[in-house]
Every structure is written in structure tokens, then in C-alpha cells.
């Protein structure tokens, strides 16, 4: 079977080809789910927001000008969807999204897929604590940290996704990391 490259899938998707849309969805479902999950983490229906991201993306794919990669463009929609959700939730007073979660919250989804043998327990615990640290960051800092350190985007890609200049990305990332290190101190030592 011939492999269709991403640009061709995007072109076909623009013409309303649902099969191409599904292929793009299969490639980016997990990264987008991770992005939304790490950004919101138990503060919203992640699955609903993931659907919203893809519906927005496919609904506005005609506006994708290929100045950035499709991945970067999709990540931008994902990040903006999360930030909008956080902002909207704050306005509606549904949840204080800048407050840390209660320590009693379950972190089961962080550990999904892991057998949790004894040797992994410490790593699991560190991961759970680090997610709590991510949750405590302001949404802008959280977005930059998740995109760069969790999703593995380059500084330039993060700048494109977030829509700020490179210097702002660097300073936000440095601040976000420093805060995480401070909050993680007792677990790191």
C-alpha cells in the first residue's frame, strides 16, 4: 500500500476526505491527548476537549497555510483550546484552575499502562509529584513547560504554538522549571 505523506493527507482533508482526516487523527490523537491531559489534568473532561481540538482543526483546515507544520498548527489549536477552557472555567468559578489540586486526588491516570513494579514506584511517585507541580503553574507557564519538556517541541516550535517571541518562551520556561524544581526539592533530594 502506498504511503501518503502528511501534506497530501492535509490537502485531501481540505477537500473533505474523511479517511484522510482519520489518518491525521490517528497520528496526532495521542500527542493531543497528552497535551490536553497534562494541561488540564482532572480539571475538565479531557476526552471532550480532545474531540473539540480535532473538530476545530478539521473545521478550519482550509485556513491552514502551511507556514508552520501541521503538528505545530494542531498543537496551537490544542493549547488555545486548553487555555480558553481554563479561562472560561475561571470566569464561571467552576474550579480554581491556578490552585494546586488536593494532595488526596487520585493520580491513577498518570500511572495507567505501568505495571508499577517496586522499582518503578519511586519514578511513579516522582511523576505524580511533578504533575502536581505542573498543575500549580500559571496556564501560560504550564503551556510552555508541557510543550517543551513533555511534548518535546523545540523553542522555535513552542514560540509558534504559543504565539509569543523566542525570548518570552525562554524566560517563561526558565521560570516554570525553577518553580517546579523548588516545589520538587524534597522529592529530588
Amino acid at each position, binding site marked *: 500500500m502506498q504511503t501518503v505523506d502528511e501534506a497530501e493527507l492535509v490537502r485531501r482533508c481540505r477537500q473533505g476526505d474523511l479517511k484522510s*482526516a482519520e489518518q491525521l487523527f490517528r497520528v496526532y490523537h495521542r500527542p493531543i491527548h497528552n497535551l490536553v491531559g497534562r494541561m488540564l489534568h482532572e480539571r475538565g473532561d479531557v476526552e471532550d476537549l480532545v*474531540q473539540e481540538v480535532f473538530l476545530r482543526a478539521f*473545521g478550519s483546515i482550509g485556513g491552514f497555510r502551511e507556514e508552520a507544520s501541521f503538528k505545530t498548527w494542531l498543537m496551537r489549536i490544542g493549547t488555545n483550546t486548553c487555555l480558553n477552557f481554563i479561562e472560561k472555567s475561571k470566569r464561571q468559578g467552576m474550579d480554581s484552575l491556578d490552585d494546586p489540586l488536593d494532595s488526596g486526588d487520585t493520580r491513577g*491516570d498518570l500511572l495507567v499502562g505501568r505495571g508499577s513494579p517496586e522499582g518503578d514506584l519511586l519514578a511513579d511517585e516522582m*511523576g505524580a509529584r*511533578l504533575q502536581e507541580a505542573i498543575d500549580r503553574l500559571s496556564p501560560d507557564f504550564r503551556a510552555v513547560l508541557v510543550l517543551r519538556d513533555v511534548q518535546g517541541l523545540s523553542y522555535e516550535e513552542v514560540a509558534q504554538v504559543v504565539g509569543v517571541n523566542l525570548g518570552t518562551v525562554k524566560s517563561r520556561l*526558565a521560570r516554570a522549571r*525553577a518553580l517546579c*524544581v523548588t516545589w520538587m526539592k524534597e522529592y529530588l533530594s
Partner: protein
Amino acid sequence: MKGGAMERDCTWVQERISFYADGIVQGDEERLLHAHLRGCADCAATLADLLRTVHILEHLPDLEPSEDPWEAISFSLRRSGFHKKRLLARAGRFAAAALLGIAGLTYALSAFMTPPQADMNAYWREHAIFTAQGIPMTVGANVVAIEATYRMQKE
């Protein structure tokens, strides 16, 4: 950390330590940071903590989706008429092809109905007589010219 004029204080280092960890500091700045970190236990410890934190972040397990939302997404896309773009695109392509076909046919017919320029010249040469001035004339004009010539001869 105590040091000479070229050395930087811990605040200066802490502001750049994240960039140092990512390897995006170069030149003198990198040398100064490196020198400071070799001699300052506090900043070296901060760097170690930072590197460890970033390492954990990079290796956080993937969050597993609890469901496959494609069915719901494709349903919504269909309902919004997403797939109709394809039908519209096909209709557009068909209309463009039809227009091109009609234009081509019209051009071919007009070319067939009208003799080419070279043939037109031959046509005029065949059907024209030349007046005293050598101007080619049409058959209809020739009759007028012949009649005029006769009249002149009679006079």
C-alpha cells in the same frame, strides 16, 4: 560564590541555568557559567535538580485515552457537512472541465468555419481584379469597377 571581576554571581547564573541545561548558551557566557558551576556547590546542586526534573518531565508516561473518539468526531464532521467539501470540489472540477470543453469546442468550430489567414489571401487573389492603382478589390467592387471602365471607354 567569591571570585574575580570576570566571574558572575549566583543570581546571574541562576537566571541562565535553564538555558545552560538545554545547551543553548554559547561563547563567553557559556565559559563563565561553566567556570561558576565548577566552583559553586549551590548552583551545581540547582543544575543537578533542574536536569533531574527535566529528565522526569521528558519521561512522564503517556496518558492513555480511555476511548477512541473518532466515531464521535466523524459523526460531528459529517453533520457539519465536512465531507460535502469533497462533493463540491468534484462538482467544481466537473464544471471547470465542462467549461474548458465548451471553450475548446467553440474555438475548434470557429477555426473550421473561418478560412485561415493564408487561405483568405489566396481567396482574395483569386476573386479580385486589380484597378489601375493595383488595389485588390472584392468581386462586388469589381463589377462597379468594370462598369466604370466601360463608361470611361465609351466616353
